[in-house]
């Protein structure tokens, strides 16, 4: 069993170096890492940023252990207990899923259909409003490679890539030399729009500071100016109108412009309406030049879950399977709202830290219901979960597909061995066990949905 394997000597003792390793930390999903492994431990990482480097170098720190109601248990016992809980639950929740690979994401949807669960993922509290806006008005977008090769105007709006996506600037958007941007930074104008200066301000040519919660107003003012209207006000959202006019001129005169946005737009007043305005602004600008926009995504495969969920159910998040077919509704089936209304009666959190990232009051409900956590590392969720199932960390100890922030698929490599099964294997075993429970051992097919 897995626990016995845990103390086994690593299979490969000779040091080895893997190249072309794909990093799972942020949505830039760099695919050029070189990782050296000695005795089952990663000892050197080349080409990664400080965040990616530490993801690999500290892969053995803070690991979780299999536990059943606070007591040490085997992985098998934990999987059996988790299956019993999920099979019995009337309105279960499956959540997390963005720090793993596509195969596990597919299995999570299969499980949701089997038990009639609500399924949502960490995009729910980061870029869900962005997708809601894309569903509303569409998006003119491009790959990161197009930005590298073509963009002579790059705007970072409400995002801080210098801290959250450290290699975005050198790989795609600021200093990198491209086909039509051969001089790199000299061929690009970089503008940051934010409520506060950040380390990104240092890599930008200009910083436009606005008042918090005024993005919708500012973008609407820009749209009016793009359409040739005059504004009566002297300033909008704390920005002088002359400064907005100068920005509009830069946008219209660029050969290829792109706006990258972050949580400064999705988590503030206006939510998806901020993005509706921004996407419409980019569309308006295509009357004058080529203009794109793209979300700065937070995890290595955060796009993957939305991709898989969309292709399998038609919706990118907030999906409810309780009737045996998928239904979608923000506010109703979104994880934060369901927990706030104390609706779900059991939760499976996998490859994400719900307790660590949700509004504090929601933790109380999660702690009051049967809570299952599948995570390679201890987190705020594993600390309070009834059942903790350790897994092999995706992109380090488990391979699989991932989608980069610009929706380009890449292959996570398995760099080291883990004594624990992958997220995908754990979900497969839970699915098999629940099917057995539902058929009551008589081999009858499992009922659809809640049955």
């Amino acid at each position, binding site marked *: 069993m897995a626990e016995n394997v845990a103390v086994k000597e690593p299979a490969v003792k000779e040091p080895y170096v893997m190249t072309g390793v794909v990093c799972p*930390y942020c949505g830039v999903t760099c695919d050029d890492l070189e990782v050296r492994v000695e005795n089952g431990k990663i000892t050197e990482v080349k080409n990664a940023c*400080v*965040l990616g480097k*530490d*993801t690999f*170098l*500290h892969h053995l*720190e*803070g690991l979780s252990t299999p536990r059943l109601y606070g007591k040490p248990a085997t992985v098998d016992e934990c999987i059996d207990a988790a299956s019993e809980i999920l099979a019995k639950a009337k309105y279960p929740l499956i959540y997390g899923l963005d720090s793993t690979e596509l195969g596990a994401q597919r299995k999570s949807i299969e499980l949701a259909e089997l038990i009639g669960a609500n399924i949502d993922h960490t995009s*729910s*509290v980061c870029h*869900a*409003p962005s997708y*809601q806006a894309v569903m509303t008005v569409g998006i003119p977008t491009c790959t990161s490679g197009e930005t590298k090769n073509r963009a002579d105007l790059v705007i970072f709006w409400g995002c*801080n890539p210098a*801290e*959250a996506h*450290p290699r975005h600037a050198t790989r795609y958007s600021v200093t990198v030399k491209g086909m039509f941007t051969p001089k790199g930074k000299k061929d690009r104008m970089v503008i940051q729009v934010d*409520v*506060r*200066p950040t*380390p990104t301000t240092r890599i930008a040519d200009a910083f436009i*500071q606005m008042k*918090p*919660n005024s993005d919708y107003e500012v973008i609407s003012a820009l749209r009016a100016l793009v359409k040739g209207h005059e504004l009566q006000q002297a300033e909008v959202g704390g920005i002088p109108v002359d400064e907005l006019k100068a920005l509009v001129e830069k946008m219209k005169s660029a050969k290829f412009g792109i706006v990258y946005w972050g*949580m*400064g737009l*999705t*988590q*503030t*007043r206006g*939510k*998806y309406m901020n993005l509706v305005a921004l996407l419409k602004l980019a569309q308006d600008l295509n009357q004058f030049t080529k203009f794109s926009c793209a979300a700065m995504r*937070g995890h290595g495969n955060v796009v993957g879950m939305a991709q898989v969920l969309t292709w399998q159910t038609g919706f990118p*998040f*907030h999906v409810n399977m309780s009737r045996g077919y998928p239904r979608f509704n*923000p*506010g*109703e089936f*979104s*994880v*934060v*709202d369901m*927990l*706030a209304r104390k609706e779900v009666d059991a939760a499976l959190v996998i490859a994400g*830290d719900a*307790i*660590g*990232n*949700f*509004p*504090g*009051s*929601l*933790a109380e409900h999660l702690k009051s219901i049967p809570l299952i956590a599948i995570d390679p*590392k*201890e*987190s*705020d969720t594993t600390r309070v979960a009834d059942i903790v199932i350790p897994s092999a960390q995706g992109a380090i100890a488990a391979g699989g597909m991932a989608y980069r922030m610009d929706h380009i698929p890449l292959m996570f490599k398995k760099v080291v061995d883990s004594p624990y099964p992958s997220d995908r294997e754990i979900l497969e075993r839970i699915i098999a066990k629940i099917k057995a429970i539902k058929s009551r051992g008589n081999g009858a097919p499992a009922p659809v949905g809640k049955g």
Partner: protein
Amino acid sequence: MPDTQFILITGRSTKQGKSVHLGKEAQEYRDEVSTLQMNLKDIEALGLQDGVQARVKSNYGSIVVTLKKTDIPQGIVFIPYGELSNALIGPDTQATGMPDSKGITVEVERHG
């Protein structure tokens, strides 16, 4: 807005992203997610000093942080997100699914 009220922004920082790999129990991580960035003029206006502890209150909760002076504009405070900062965030999403994690009003006051 009263002088003790500020607009709170929660978000990522490099230190938070780096130290999380040491584990969420690691001191380095705990220190980073309990540090509130504030303009020195605001810190002094409250009669406090750089590096001291302060209490931050919202409509939903209250936490104790260590103040750190930065070039953040006056009237705005920033904290790297984590379980601590989330105590200040309310569950209302206005039916969008997204709570107000940035741009909320908080009170900052002396602790102890």
